[in-house]
């Protein structure tokens, strides 16, 4: 698109700038729509598991439920508690929301269709997702209230703990892929298993690691069974207790944006991203973005399924899982996988 703008006589820099801006809008706006639809989908999944009907009143099959909720939230009054730190209080949801969006810059939707095809894509994702915790911490602290503060402390500890094991999991995956570039990671999965299956996840050495990543990504997005930051029986609503109106909605949008992102990352890192499941020519006729969406929806179903069925962890159990089980396990797999690759791929 940069070239197209240049044909109007605009300099390269400004045509790149405009093209990138349009690219951002093309990703961000459908993402907002996707969040609305995914909330509806999740409520339908929970309803099906609990043998209920779920939202079915607003619009055909209740499809417009999320939009009705959004409209309701937007029309409410934004309440800022008098003892709250006003600037930070309003900044926190903006941080959460922004961070949830910026990570999408490096997600490849199809071969070559990615906003920023940088060679440190994976590190960018780690960097951006590590910023996400600030929204929660700042919200909890600036509310100047007990429960949000507890929630912020829990969130900080949880996020830092699980980022450690996520880091090692990704090291394992990168050892196989040999690159930090997201498109490169997906392309390396082409015919990975027996020259036919496009997925790292079915590799016996990487399958346990992919499960660790799936569970860690639930912890990273504060989803059940790890939603201790908003455990309603202990902390009212956690860090968002004092929030109302659009500031509350921004937390929700950010949270679900992160969930969709984690589904995409699970699909990209271990299950072939935009590649079809099998390396068979007719399957490539379907555009890559469709395959990516199918995989993302599959992971989203798992997320919803877990949320509907698994009871919440205790905080010490959460920490034990992160530090005493996932960390040694992923560390052992780093050694195992690098040893195996030295024997087979890089040795001799």
């Amino acid at each position, binding site marked *: 698109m940069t070239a197209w703008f240049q044909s109007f006589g605009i300099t390269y*820099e400004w045509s790149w700038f405009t093209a990138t801006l349009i690219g951002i809008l093309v990703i961000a706006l459908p993402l907002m729509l996707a969040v609305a639809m995914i909330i509806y989908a999740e409520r339908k999944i929970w309803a099906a598991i609990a043998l209920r009907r779920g939202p079915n009143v607003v619009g055909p099959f209740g499809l417009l439920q999320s939009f009705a909720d959004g409209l309701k939230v937007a029309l409410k009054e934004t309440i800022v508690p008098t003892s709250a730190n006003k600037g930070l209080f309003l900044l926190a949801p903006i941080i959460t929301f922004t961070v949830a969006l910026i990570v999408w810059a490096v997600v490849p939707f199809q071969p070559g269709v990615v906003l920023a095809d940088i060679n440190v894509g994976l590190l960018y994702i*780690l*960097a951006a997702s*590590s910023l996400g915790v600030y929204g929660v911490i700042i919200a909890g602290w600036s509310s100047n209230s007990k429960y949000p503060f507890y929630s912020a402390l829990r969130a900080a500890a949880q*996020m830092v703990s699980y*980022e450690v094991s996520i880091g090692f999991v990704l090291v394992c995956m990168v050892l196989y892929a040999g690159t930090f570039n997201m498109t490169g990671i997906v392309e390396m999965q082409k015919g990975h298993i027996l020259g036919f299956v496009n997925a790292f996840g079915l590799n016996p050495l990487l399958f346990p690691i992919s499960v660790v990543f799936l569970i860690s990504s639930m912890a990273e997005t504060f989803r059940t069974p790890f939603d201790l930051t908003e455990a309603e029986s202990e902390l009212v609503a956690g860090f968002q207790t004092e929030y109302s109106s659009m500031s509350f909605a921004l937390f929700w949008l950010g949270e679900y944006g992160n969930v969709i992102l984690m589904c995409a990352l699970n699909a990209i890192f271990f299950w072939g991203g935009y590649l079809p499941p099998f390396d068979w020519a007719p399957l490539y006729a379907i555009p890559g973005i469709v395959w990516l969406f199918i995989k993302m929806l599959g992971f989203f179903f798992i997320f919803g399924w877990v949320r509907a069925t698994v009871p919440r962890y205790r905080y010490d*159990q959460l920490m034990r899982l992160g530090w005493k089980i996932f960390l040694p396990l992923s560390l052992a797999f780093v050694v195992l996988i690098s040893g195996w690759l030295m024997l087979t791929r890089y040795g001799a």
Partner: protein
Amino acid sequence: MIALLAFYLFATVTIASAVLVIFARNPVHSVLWLILAFFNAAGLILLTGAEFIAMLLVIVYVGAVAVLFLFVVMMLDVDFSSLRSGFTRNLPFGLMIALVLLAEIVIAVGAQQAGPVLARGAAAPAVDAVSNIEALGTALYTRYLIPFELAGLILLVAMIGAIVLTHRSRGDVRGQNANRQISRRPQDATRNTRPVSGEGVTL
């Protein structure tokens, strides 16, 4: 043009937030300004083309160190007036550190102006021949393997030392034993009875 704009944006925000770290009255605000300074420093590093270092700065400092820092500062019960009373007493010491840092920066810039540092006759690597990550990895794991491993070992020792110093088993605390909790079965704790009406049950 855009790179220049970005440079001035990052540079201005870095300096402004660094100043605000010192002048903010609330320690939590100070830490938040510090985080902003880190983040903009990463932006500056990114502009020089060292994308790997920039990402590491964000992951390590913004994502982990500053979070723990914020964590501690938020929980401190700080008396603000006593914090400021030591200002004049600590001023000479602070000025001395600032002077040393300034001198080091001047020396570093001067040395860099005098000519690039080439380690013992090694030729400078061809620019753009390999990616930054590859070049860094090759350098770290071949030429600088022993210093790198030593740094890792020192960190490991420090980590173990911190755990040994702070961890103590207290007799008066009942901990959670996950294995015992998991291996517990319903029949160990409950009993099915068929009480006869009017007889009551024995507990």
